[in-house]
Protein backbone atom coordinates (compact mmCIF):
# COMPACT_ATOMS: atom_id res chain seq x y z
CA UNK A 1 0.00 0.00 0.00
CA UNK A 2 1.32 3.41 -0.91
CA UNK A 3 1.34 5.80 2.03
CA UNK A 4 0.99 9.55 1.78
CA UNK A 5 4.71 9.94 2.49
CA UNK A 6 5.60 7.74 -0.49
CA UNK A 7 3.34 9.93 -2.59
CA UNK A 8 5.14 13.08 -1.39
CA UNK A 9 8.49 11.44 -2.09
CA UNK A 10 7.39 10.65 -5.62
CA UNK A 11 6.23 14.24 -6.23
CA UNK A 12 9.48 15.60 -4.79
CA UNK A 13 11.55 13.29 -6.98
CA UNK A 14 9.66 14.50 -10.07
CA UNK A 15 10.36 18.11 -9.06
CA UNK A 16 14.02 17.25 -8.48
CA UNK A 17 14.46 15.74 -11.93
CA UNK A 18 12.63 18.65 -13.55
CA UNK A 19 14.96 21.07 -11.82
CA UNK A 20 17.96 19.01 -12.85
CA UNK A 21 16.86 18.95 -16.49
CA UNK A 22 15.61 22.55 -16.60
CA UNK A 23 18.97 24.04 -17.74
CA UNK A 24 18.50 22.22 -21.04
CA UNK A 25 15.39 24.33 -21.65
CA UNK A 26 16.25 27.52 -19.78
CA UNK A 27 19.84 28.15 -20.85
CA UNK A 28 19.13 28.50 -24.59
CA UNK A 29 16.52 31.11 -23.66
CA UNK A 30 19.08 32.93 -21.53
CA UNK A 31 21.85 32.87 -24.12
CA UNK A 32 19.91 33.20 -27.35
CA UNK A 33 16.81 35.28 -26.65
CA UNK A 34 17.55 37.64 -23.75
CA UNK A 35 20.82 39.12 -25.18
CA UNK A 36 18.89 40.04 -28.30
CA UNK A 37 16.33 41.93 -26.17
CA UNK A 38 19.13 43.69 -24.30
CA UNK A 39 18.12 42.92 -20.69
CA UNK A 40 20.87 42.53 -18.12
CA UNK A 41 20.68 39.09 -16.57
CA UNK A 42 22.71 37.37 -13.86
CA UNK A 43 25.55 35.25 -15.17
CA UNK A 44 25.26 31.49 -14.89
CA UNK A 45 27.86 31.51 -12.15
CA UNK A 46 25.96 34.08 -10.10
CA UNK A 47 22.68 32.26 -10.62
CA UNK A 48 24.01 28.86 -9.57
CA UNK A 49 25.79 30.36 -6.54
CA UNK A 50 22.54 32.04 -5.53
CA UNK A 51 20.73 28.71 -5.68
CA UNK A 52 23.18 27.19 -3.19
CA UNK A 53 24.18 30.12 -0.96
CA UNK A 54 21.17 31.86 0.65
CA UNK A 55 23.04 35.07 1.48
CA UNK A 56 24.25 35.47 -2.12
CA UNK A 57 20.72 34.65 -3.23
CA UNK A 58 19.29 37.46 -1.10
CA UNK A 59 21.90 39.86 -2.49
CA UNK A 60 21.00 38.87 -6.03
CA UNK A 61 17.28 39.27 -5.30
CA UNK A 62 17.95 42.72 -3.80
CA UNK A 63 19.82 43.70 -6.96
CA UNK A 64 16.70 43.01 -9.04
CA UNK A 65 14.27 44.61 -6.60
CA UNK A 66 12.65 41.49 -5.16
CA UNK A 67 14.75 41.11 -1.99
CA UNK A 68 13.43 40.82 1.57
CA UNK A 69 13.36 44.61 2.03
CA UNK A 70 11.45 45.34 -1.17
CA UNK A 71 7.75 46.12 -1.29
CA UNK A 72 7.17 43.20 -3.63
CA UNK A 73 8.55 40.75 -1.07
CA UNK A 74 6.43 42.33 1.66
CA UNK A 75 3.26 42.00 -0.38
CA UNK A 76 3.95 38.55 -1.78
CA UNK A 77 5.77 36.76 1.01
CA UNK A 78 6.08 38.21 4.51
CA UNK A 79 3.95 39.65 6.10
CA UNK A 80 1.76 39.53 3.02
CA UNK A 81 0.01 36.82 1.08
CA UNK A 82 2.24 33.75 1.50
CA UNK A 83 2.50 34.18 5.26
CA UNK A 84 -1.26 34.68 5.52
CA UNK A 85 -1.97 31.63 3.36
CA UNK A 86 0.39 29.59 5.52
CA UNK A 87 -1.38 30.84 8.64
CA UNK A 88 -4.73 30.00 7.02
CA UNK A 89 -3.68 26.40 6.37
CA UNK A 90 -2.33 26.14 9.91
CA UNK A 91 -5.65 27.49 11.20
CA UNK A 92 -7.51 24.80 9.22
CA UNK A 93 -5.33 22.07 10.72
CA UNK A 94 -5.55 23.57 14.22
CA UNK A 95 -9.32 23.93 13.93
CA UNK A 96 -9.79 20.31 12.94
CA UNK A 97 -7.55 19.05 15.74
CA UNK A 98 -9.05 21.34 18.38
CA UNK A 99 -12.67 20.56 17.53
CA UNK A 100 -11.82 16.86 17.54
CA UNK A 101 -10.25 17.20 20.99
CA UNK A 102 -13.27 19.08 22.36
CA UNK A 103 -15.63 16.43 21.02
CA UNK A 104 -13.41 13.63 22.42
CA UNK A 105 -12.35 12.49 18.96
CA UNK A 106 -8.83 12.18 17.58
CA UNK A 107 -8.98 14.25 14.39
CA UNK A 108 -6.60 13.97 11.40
CA UNK A 109 -4.08 11.28 12.26
CA UNK A 110 -2.45 9.51 9.37
CA UNK A 111 -0.92 12.17 7.07
CA UNK A 112 2.52 12.81 8.52
CA UNK A 113 4.18 10.88 11.30
CA UNK A 114 2.94 13.09 14.16
CA UNK A 115 -0.78 13.68 14.71
CA UNK A 116 -1.58 14.35 11.05
CA UNK A 117 0.49 17.51 10.65
CA UNK A 118 0.65 17.08 6.87
CA UNK A 119 -3.15 16.98 6.54
CA UNK A 120 -3.41 20.46 4.88
CA UNK A 121 -0.98 19.30 2.15
CA UNK A 122 -3.00 16.13 1.69
CA UNK A 123 -6.17 18.24 1.42
CA UNK A 124 -4.47 20.48 -1.13
CA UNK A 125 -3.49 17.51 -3.30
CA UNK A 126 -7.00 16.11 -3.02
CA UNK A 127 -8.56 19.41 -4.09
CA UNK A 128 -6.07 19.79 -6.96
CA UNK A 129 -6.95 16.32 -8.16
CA UNK A 130 -10.70 16.99 -8.28
CA UNK A 131 -12.46 18.00 -11.45
CA UNK A 132 -13.78 21.56 -11.60
CA UNK A 133 -17.44 21.25 -12.48
CA UNK A 134 -19.23 24.35 -13.80
CA UNK A 135 -23.03 24.02 -13.79
CA UNK A 136 -24.64 24.17 -17.22
CA UNK A 137 -26.83 27.19 -16.44
CA UNK A 138 -24.21 29.01 -14.36
CA UNK A 139 -23.13 32.52 -15.25
CA UNK A 140 -19.68 31.38 -16.36
CA UNK A 141 -17.78 34.66 -16.02
CA UNK A 142 -18.99 35.41 -12.50
CA UNK A 143 -18.76 31.78 -11.46
CA UNK A 144 -15.05 31.85 -12.26
CA UNK A 145 -14.65 35.35 -10.83
CA UNK A 146 -16.03 34.63 -7.33
CA UNK A 147 -13.11 32.51 -5.98
CA UNK A 148 -10.60 35.05 -7.27
CA UNK A 149 -12.53 37.94 -5.71
CA UNK A 150 -12.87 36.02 -2.45
CA UNK A 151 -9.16 35.39 -2.12
CA UNK A 152 -8.41 38.92 -3.32
CA UNK A 153 -10.65 40.46 -0.66
CA UNK A 154 -9.11 38.26 2.02
CA UNK A 155 -5.62 39.28 0.98
CA UNK A 156 -6.54 42.97 0.66
CA UNK A 157 -7.40 43.01 4.38
CA UNK A 158 -3.73 42.36 5.14
CA UNK A 159 -2.48 45.51 3.43
CA UNK A 160 -2.52 47.77 6.47
CA UNK A 161 -2.31 45.33 9.38
CA UNK A 162 1.10 45.64 11.07
CA UNK A 163 2.75 42.64 12.71
CA UNK A 164 5.33 44.57 14.74
CA UNK A 165 6.83 48.10 14.73
CA UNK A 166 9.03 47.22 11.75
CA UNK A 167 7.03 44.56 9.95
CA UNK A 168 4.17 46.05 7.95
CA UNK A 169 3.23 46.38 4.30
CA UNK A 170 1.77 49.88 4.21
CA UNK A 171 1.05 52.54 6.78
CA UNK A 172 -1.85 54.91 6.58
CA UNK A 173 -3.36 57.54 8.87
CA UNK A 174 -6.76 55.86 8.55
CA UNK A 175 -5.56 52.27 8.52
CA UNK A 176 -8.35 51.18 10.87
CA UNK A 177 -11.02 52.18 8.35
CA UNK A 178 -9.48 50.32 5.41
CA UNK A 179 -10.23 46.78 6.70
CA UNK A 180 -13.81 47.80 7.37
CA UNK A 181 -14.13 49.25 3.89
CA UNK A 182 -12.87 45.96 2.46
CA UNK A 183 -15.13 43.86 4.68
CA UNK A 184 -18.00 45.90 3.26
CA UNK A 185 -17.36 44.28 -0.12
CA UNK A 186 -17.76 40.70 1.14
CA UNK A 187 -21.58 40.53 0.70
CA UNK A 188 -21.09 41.49 -2.95
CA UNK A 189 -18.68 38.59 -3.54
CA UNK A 190 -21.02 36.18 -1.79
CA UNK A 191 -23.96 37.43 -3.86
CA UNK A 192 -21.92 37.01 -7.06
CA UNK A 193 -21.01 33.44 -6.08
CA UNK A 194 -24.58 32.62 -5.05
CA UNK A 195 -26.27 34.14 -8.11
CA UNK A 196 -23.78 32.76 -10.62
CA UNK A 197 -24.26 29.21 -9.34
CA UNK A 198 -27.95 29.30 -10.42
CA UNK A 199 -28.83 26.88 -7.65
CA UNK A 200 -31.64 27.43 -5.17
CA UNK A 201 -29.59 26.31 -2.15
CA UNK A 202 -26.72 28.56 -3.14
CA UNK A 203 -29.04 31.49 -3.70
CA UNK A 204 -30.88 31.11 -0.38
CA UNK A 205 -27.52 30.76 1.38
CA UNK A 206 -26.25 33.87 -0.39
CA UNK A 207 -29.30 35.90 0.65
CA UNK A 208 -28.93 34.73 4.24
CA UNK A 209 -25.25 35.68 4.21
CA UNK A 210 -26.23 39.08 2.83
CA UNK A 211 -28.71 39.70 5.65
CA UNK A 212 -26.26 38.54 8.26
CA UNK A 213 -23.17 40.40 7.10
CA UNK A 214 -24.98 43.70 6.65
CA UNK A 215 -26.62 43.38 10.10
CA UNK A 216 -23.34 42.73 11.87
CA UNK A 217 -21.10 45.25 10.11
CA UNK A 218 -22.75 48.14 11.97
CA UNK A 219 -22.12 46.96 15.57
CA UNK A 220 -18.64 45.87 14.47
CA UNK A 221 -17.70 49.39 13.42
CA UNK A 222 -19.42 51.08 16.38
CA UNK A 223 -17.75 48.76 18.90
CA UNK A 224 -14.37 49.76 17.50
CA UNK A 225 -15.16 53.48 17.85
CA UNK A 226 -14.60 53.17 21.61
CA UNK A 227 -10.99 52.17 20.94
CA UNK A 228 -10.65 55.09 18.55
CA UNK A 229 -11.92 57.51 21.22
CA UNK A 230 -9.51 56.12 23.83
CA UNK A 231 -6.45 56.23 21.59
CA UNK A 232 -7.43 59.34 19.68
CA UNK A 233 -6.32 58.01 16.33
CA UNK A 234 -7.43 55.87 13.39
CA UNK A 235 -3.86 54.69 12.76
CA UNK A 236 -3.41 51.08 13.89
CA UNK A 237 0.22 51.76 14.82
CA UNK A 238 -0.78 54.58 17.18
CA UNK A 239 -3.69 52.53 18.55
CA UNK A 240 -1.27 49.75 19.48
CA UNK A 241 1.31 52.18 20.86
CA UNK A 242 -1.30 53.76 23.14
CA UNK A 243 -1.87 50.32 24.73
CA UNK A 244 1.62 50.26 26.24
CA UNK A 245 0.24 50.88 29.75
CA UNK A 246 -3.06 49.04 29.69
CA UNK A 247 -4.60 46.84 27.01
CA UNK A 248 -7.91 48.17 25.69
CA UNK A 249 -9.71 44.92 26.59
CA UNK A 250 -9.84 46.16 30.22
CA UNK A 251 -11.56 49.56 29.73
CA UNK A 252 -13.41 48.29 26.65
CA UNK A 253 -14.50 44.80 27.75
CA UNK A 254 -18.02 45.23 26.38
CA UNK A 255 -16.63 46.49 23.06
CA UNK A 256 -14.26 43.53 22.87
CA UNK A 257 -17.10 41.06 23.44
CA UNK A 258 -19.25 42.73 20.77
CA UNK A 259 -16.34 42.77 18.35
CA UNK A 260 -15.73 39.07 19.06
CA UNK A 261 -19.38 38.18 18.38
CA UNK A 262 -19.38 40.18 15.16
CA UNK A 263 -16.15 38.44 14.09
CA UNK A 264 -17.94 35.11 14.51
CA UNK A 265 -20.78 36.41 12.39
CA UNK A 266 -18.60 37.95 9.68
CA UNK A 267 -16.72 34.66 9.33
CA UNK A 268 -20.03 32.75 9.17
CA UNK A 269 -18.97 30.47 11.98
CA UNK A 270 -21.18 28.62 14.45
CA UNK A 271 -23.47 29.81 16.07
CA UNK A 272 -23.89 32.22 13.13
CA UNK A 273 -23.36 29.73 10.30
CA UNK A 274 -26.87 29.94 8.88
CA UNK A 275 -25.58 30.86 5.36
CA UNK A 276 -23.99 27.42 5.06
CA UNK A 277 -26.25 25.48 7.39
CA UNK A 278 -25.40 21.93 6.38
CA UNK A 279 -28.66 20.42 7.56
CA UNK A 280 -30.86 22.87 5.66
CA UNK A 281 -28.91 24.18 2.67
CA UNK A 282 -26.43 21.68 1.30
CA UNK A 283 -23.43 23.90 1.80
CA UNK A 284 -24.94 27.35 1.41
CA UNK A 285 -23.46 29.61 -1.21
CA UNK A 286 -20.52 27.21 -1.64
CA UNK A 287 -22.78 24.40 -2.87
CA UNK A 288 -21.88 24.39 -6.56
CA UNK A 289 -18.16 24.93 -6.12
CA UNK A 290 -15.86 21.95 -6.53
CA UNK A 291 -12.18 21.18 -6.57
CA UNK A 292 -9.75 24.05 -6.39
CA UNK A 293 -12.57 26.57 -6.83
CA UNK A 294 -13.84 25.47 -3.44
CA UNK A 295 -10.28 25.43 -2.12
CA UNK A 296 -9.73 29.05 -3.16
CA UNK A 297 -13.03 30.16 -1.58
CA UNK A 298 -12.12 28.40 1.64
CA UNK A 299 -8.60 29.84 1.56
CA UNK A 300 -10.10 33.32 1.14
CA UNK A 301 -12.40 32.74 4.12
CA UNK A 302 -9.55 31.50 6.30
CA UNK A 303 -7.26 34.38 5.30
CA UNK A 304 -10.13 36.63 6.41
CA UNK A 305 -10.24 34.61 9.65
CA UNK A 306 -6.53 35.30 10.18
CA UNK A 307 -6.89 38.99 9.33
CA UNK A 308 -9.85 39.57 11.68
CA UNK A 309 -8.13 37.70 14.53
CA UNK A 310 -5.07 39.86 13.94
CA UNK A 311 -7.28 42.96 14.02
CA UNK A 312 -8.75 41.86 17.35
CA UNK A 313 -5.24 41.34 18.74
CA UNK A 314 -4.14 44.78 17.57
CA UNK A 315 -7.23 46.61 18.81
CA UNK A 316 -7.87 45.00 22.18
CA UNK A 317 -4.92 42.84 23.26
CA UNK A 318 -2.11 45.35 22.93
CA UNK A 319 -0.64 44.03 19.69
CA UNK A 320 3.05 43.24 20.10
CA UNK A 321 3.48 44.55 23.65
CA UNK A 322 4.49 42.17 26.42
CA UNK A 323 7.40 41.47 28.79
CA UNK A 324 10.70 42.10 27.05
CA UNK A 325 12.17 38.59 27.13
CA UNK A 326 10.45 37.71 23.85
CA UNK A 327 10.60 39.69 20.60
CA UNK A 328 7.47 41.71 19.64
CA UNK A 329 6.53 39.35 16.80
CA UNK A 330 6.51 36.37 19.17
CA UNK A 331 4.16 38.17 21.57
CA UNK A 332 1.87 39.05 18.69
CA UNK A 333 1.77 35.44 17.47
CA UNK A 334 1.07 34.12 21.01
CA UNK A 335 -1.86 36.50 21.39
CA UNK A 336 -3.04 35.65 17.89
CA UNK A 337 -2.96 31.95 18.76
CA UNK A 338 -5.12 32.64 21.82
CA UNK A 339 -7.63 34.68 19.80
CA UNK A 340 -7.82 32.00 17.09
CA UNK A 341 -8.51 29.37 19.77
CA UNK A 342 -11.32 31.44 21.23
CA UNK A 343 -12.83 32.05 17.78
CA UNK A 344 -12.71 28.33 16.92
CA UNK A 345 -14.16 27.06 20.20
CA UNK A 346 -17.87 28.01 19.67
CA UNK A 347 -17.99 25.79 16.60
CA UNK A 348 -17.37 22.77 18.81
CA UNK A 349 -19.79 23.53 21.62
CA UNK A 350 -22.67 25.63 20.28
CA UNK A 351 -25.79 24.97 18.23
CA UNK A 352 -26.89 27.18 15.33
CA UNK A 353 -29.12 30.23 15.85
CA UNK A 354 -32.41 30.64 14.03
CA UNK A 355 -32.46 33.46 11.48
CA UNK A 356 -34.92 35.62 13.48
CA UNK A 357 -32.83 35.17 16.64
CA UNK A 358 -29.78 36.18 14.64
CA UNK A 359 -31.45 39.30 13.27
CA UNK A 360 -32.78 40.27 16.72
CA UNK A 361 -29.33 39.80 18.28
CA UNK A 362 -27.69 41.89 15.57
CA UNK A 363 -30.13 44.76 15.07
CA UNK A 364 -31.47 45.09 18.63
CA UNK A 365 -28.95 43.88 21.18
CA UNK A 366 -25.55 44.40 19.61
CA UNK A 367 -26.24 47.86 18.18
CA UNK A 368 -27.71 49.06 21.49
CA UNK A 369 -24.84 47.57 23.48
CA UNK A 370 -22.24 49.01 21.13
CA UNK A 371 -23.72 52.49 21.65
CA UNK A 372 -23.60 51.93 25.42
CA UNK A 373 -19.97 50.90 24.97
CA UNK A 374 -19.35 54.14 23.10
CA UNK A 375 -20.76 56.12 26.06
CA UNK A 376 -18.53 54.12 28.43
CA UNK A 377 -15.52 55.11 26.34
CA UNK A 378 -16.56 58.78 26.37
CA UNK A 379 -17.03 58.70 30.18
CA UNK A 380 -13.65 57.05 30.67
CA UNK A 381 -11.93 59.68 28.58
CA UNK A 382 -13.75 62.62 30.21
CA UNK A 383 -12.91 61.31 33.72
CA UNK A 384 -9.30 60.95 32.62
CA UNK A 385 -9.07 57.25 33.47
CA UNK A 386 -7.02 56.42 30.37
Amino acid at each position, binding site marked *: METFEDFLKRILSIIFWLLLLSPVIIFPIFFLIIPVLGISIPTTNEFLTALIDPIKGIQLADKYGVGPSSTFFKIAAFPGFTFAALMATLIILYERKLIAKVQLR*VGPLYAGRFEGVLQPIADLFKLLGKEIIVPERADKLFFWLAPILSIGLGAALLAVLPLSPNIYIARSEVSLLIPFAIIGFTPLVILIAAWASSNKFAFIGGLRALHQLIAYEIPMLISVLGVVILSGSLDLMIIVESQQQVWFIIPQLLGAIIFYITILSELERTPFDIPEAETELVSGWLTEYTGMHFGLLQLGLYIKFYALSLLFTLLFLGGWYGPAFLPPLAWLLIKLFFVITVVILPRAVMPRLRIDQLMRLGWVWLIALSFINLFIAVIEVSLGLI
Partner: protein
Amino acid sequence: MIYSVIKEILVAFAVGIRNIFKKRMTLRYPEVKLDIDSGYTYDFKTDTASPGFKGRHILYTDKCTGCSLCAIVCENIADCIDMVRVEGNWPINERSVMPQIDYGRCVFCGFCVDACPFDCLFMTPEYELSVTDKRKLVHTPFQLAVFPEKKGTVKLIPDKRGAHHA
Protein backbone atom coordinates in the same frame (compact mmCIF):
# COMPACT_ATOMS: atom_id res chain seq x y z
CA MET B 1 -33.39 35.17 31.70
CA ILE B 2 -30.42 36.78 29.99
CA TYR B 3 -28.17 35.76 32.89
CA SER B 4 -29.15 32.14 32.45
CA VAL B 5 -28.37 32.36 28.72
CA ILE B 6 -24.91 33.82 29.44
CA LYS B 7 -24.34 31.23 32.14
CA GLU B 8 -25.24 28.40 29.79
CA ILE B 9 -22.86 29.73 27.12
CA LEU B 10 -20.03 29.94 29.65
CA VAL B 11 -20.78 26.43 30.93
CA ALA B 12 -20.63 25.11 27.35
CA PHE B 13 -17.24 26.75 26.88
CA ALA B 14 -15.99 25.34 30.18
CA VAL B 15 -17.07 21.80 29.29
CA GLY B 16 -15.41 22.14 25.89
CA ILE B 17 -12.13 23.33 27.37
CA ARG B 18 -12.20 20.58 30.00
CA ASN B 19 -12.69 17.99 27.27
CA ILE B 20 -9.47 19.09 25.51
CA PHE B 21 -7.37 17.74 28.36
CA LYS B 22 -9.22 14.45 28.76
CA LYS B 23 -7.61 11.25 27.54
CA ARG B 24 -8.90 9.90 24.22
CA MET B 25 -10.26 6.38 24.21
CA THR B 26 -10.33 5.93 20.44
CA LEU B 27 -9.11 2.49 19.37
CA ARG B 28 -6.88 2.92 16.28
CA TYR B 29 -8.40 -0.17 14.77
CA PRO B 30 -6.34 -1.62 11.93
CA GLU B 31 -3.08 -1.12 13.84
CA VAL B 32 -4.44 -1.98 17.27
CA LYS B 33 -7.01 -4.71 17.81
CA LEU B 34 -9.12 -5.32 20.85
CA ASP B 35 -8.40 -8.49 22.79
CA ILE B 36 -11.74 -9.95 23.93
CA ASP B 37 -11.68 -12.72 26.49
CA SER B 38 -14.68 -14.88 25.76
CA GLY B 39 -17.58 -15.38 23.43
CA TYR B 40 -21.24 -15.87 24.30
CA THR B 41 -22.00 -19.26 25.78
CA TYR B 42 -25.15 -20.89 27.19
CA ASP B 43 -25.33 -23.78 29.61
CA PHE B 44 -28.46 -25.78 28.76
CA LYS B 45 -28.53 -27.88 31.93
CA THR B 46 -28.38 -25.02 34.45
CA ASP B 47 -30.25 -22.64 32.12
CA THR B 48 -27.66 -19.83 32.49
CA ALA B 49 -26.02 -17.64 29.87
CA SER B 50 -22.50 -16.24 30.30
CA PRO B 51 -21.87 -12.71 29.07
CA GLY B 52 -19.52 -12.61 26.13
CA PHE B 53 -18.89 -11.26 22.67
CA LYS B 54 -21.30 -12.43 19.99
CA GLY B 55 -19.00 -13.07 17.08
CA ARG B 56 -18.48 -16.01 14.72
CA HIS B 57 -19.89 -19.35 15.93
CA ILE B 58 -17.86 -22.36 16.90
CA LEU B 59 -19.26 -25.85 16.35
CA TYR B 60 -18.04 -28.87 18.29
CA THR B 61 -18.56 -31.48 15.59
CA ASP B 62 -18.02 -34.43 17.96
CA LYS B 63 -20.98 -33.36 20.16
CA CYS B 64 -23.45 -32.35 17.42
CA THR B 65 -26.36 -34.78 16.98
CA GLY B 66 -27.94 -33.13 13.97
CA CYS B 67 -31.15 -32.30 15.87
CA SER B 68 -31.75 -29.14 13.75
CA LEU B 69 -33.00 -27.10 16.74
CA CYS B 70 -30.59 -24.25 15.85
CA ALA B 71 -31.95 -24.14 12.29
CA ILE B 72 -35.54 -24.20 13.56
CA VAL B 73 -35.01 -21.34 16.02
CA CYS B 74 -33.22 -19.32 13.33
CA GLU B 75 -36.02 -19.78 10.79
CA ASN B 76 -38.06 -16.76 11.88
CA ILE B 77 -35.14 -14.50 12.76
CA ALA B 78 -32.53 -14.55 10.02
CA ASP B 79 -33.03 -17.93 8.35
CA CYS B 80 -29.31 -18.29 7.95
CA ILE B 81 -28.70 -21.80 9.32
CA ASP B 82 -29.02 -24.75 6.96
CA MET B 83 -28.49 -28.35 7.95
CA VAL B 84 -26.06 -29.89 5.46
CA ARG B 85 -24.77 -33.41 5.09
CA VAL B 86 -21.14 -33.86 6.08
CA GLU B 87 -18.83 -36.67 5.14
CA GLY B 88 -17.32 -38.97 7.70
CA ASN B 89 -18.40 -41.29 10.46
CA TRP B 90 -20.20 -39.61 13.36
CA PRO B 91 -21.24 -42.00 16.16
CA ILE B 92 -23.93 -39.78 17.76
CA ASN B 93 -25.02 -38.12 14.53
CA GLU B 94 -26.93 -40.73 12.56
CA ARG B 95 -27.97 -38.59 9.60
CA SER B 96 -24.57 -36.78 9.46
CA VAL B 97 -26.19 -33.32 9.22
CA MET B 98 -24.62 -30.26 10.82
CA PRO B 99 -25.39 -26.53 10.72
CA GLN B 100 -23.95 -24.35 7.99
CA ILE B 101 -24.19 -20.60 8.69
CA ASP B 102 -24.59 -17.83 6.11
CA TYR B 103 -23.00 -14.73 7.68
CA GLY B 104 -24.53 -12.55 5.01
CA ARG B 105 -27.83 -13.08 6.81
CA CYS B 106 -26.83 -13.74 10.42
CA VAL B 107 -27.80 -11.04 12.93
CA PHE B 108 -25.69 -12.49 15.77
CA CYS B 109 -28.67 -12.78 18.14
CA GLY B 110 -27.33 -15.93 19.81
CA PHE B 111 -30.66 -17.81 19.86
CA CYS B 112 -29.09 -20.84 18.19
CA VAL B 113 -26.64 -21.03 21.08
CA ASP B 114 -29.56 -20.89 23.53
CA ALA B 115 -31.40 -23.59 21.64
CA CYS B 116 -28.58 -26.13 21.43
CA PRO B 117 -29.28 -28.81 24.09
CA PHE B 118 -25.95 -30.62 23.63
CA ASP B 119 -23.50 -27.72 24.34
CA CYS B 120 -21.98 -27.93 20.89
CA LEU B 121 -22.73 -24.47 19.38
CA PHE B 122 -21.17 -21.39 20.99
CA MET B 123 -20.00 -17.97 19.89
CA THR B 124 -16.41 -16.72 19.72
CA PRO B 125 -14.93 -13.21 19.94
CA GLU B 126 -13.85 -13.29 16.31
CA TYR B 127 -15.38 -10.31 14.45
CA GLU B 128 -13.28 -9.88 11.32
CA LEU B 129 -15.56 -11.74 8.94
CA SER B 130 -15.47 -9.55 5.85
CA VAL B 131 -14.61 -11.18 2.55
CA THR B 132 -14.38 -10.01 -1.04
CA ASP B 133 -16.65 -12.74 -2.40
CA LYS B 134 -20.12 -13.04 -0.94
CA ARG B 135 -20.19 -16.82 -1.45
CA LYS B 136 -17.37 -17.07 1.10
CA LEU B 137 -19.72 -15.71 3.75
CA VAL B 138 -21.33 -19.15 3.96
CA HIS B 139 -19.31 -21.06 6.55
CA THR B 140 -19.42 -24.86 6.31
CA PRO B 141 -19.51 -27.00 9.50
CA PHE B 142 -15.79 -27.71 9.18
CA GLN B 143 -15.00 -23.99 8.89
CA LEU B 144 -17.14 -23.39 11.97
CA ALA B 145 -15.26 -26.08 13.87
CA VAL B 146 -11.96 -24.16 13.68
CA PHE B 147 -11.09 -22.38 16.89
CA PRO B 148 -10.36 -18.67 16.14
CA GLU B 149 -6.78 -17.48 16.44
CA LYS B 150 -6.01 -14.61 18.80
CA LYS B 151 -5.40 -11.32 16.99
CA GLY B 152 -6.06 -8.79 19.76
CA THR B 153 -3.21 -6.71 21.12
CA VAL B 154 -4.89 -4.44 23.69
CA LYS B 155 -7.36 -5.07 26.48
CA LEU B 156 -10.39 -3.04 27.47
CA ILE B 157 -9.97 -2.07 31.10
CA PRO B 158 -13.03 -0.78 32.95
CA ASP B 159 -12.40 2.07 35.37
CA LYS B 160 -14.36 4.56 37.43
CA ARG B 161 -15.49 6.79 34.54
CA GLY B 162 -15.94 4.20 31.81
CA ALA B 163 -13.15 2.24 30.22
CA HIS B 164 -9.78 2.63 28.58
CA HIS B 165 -7.42 0.56 26.46
CA ALA B 166 -4.03 -0.73 27.54
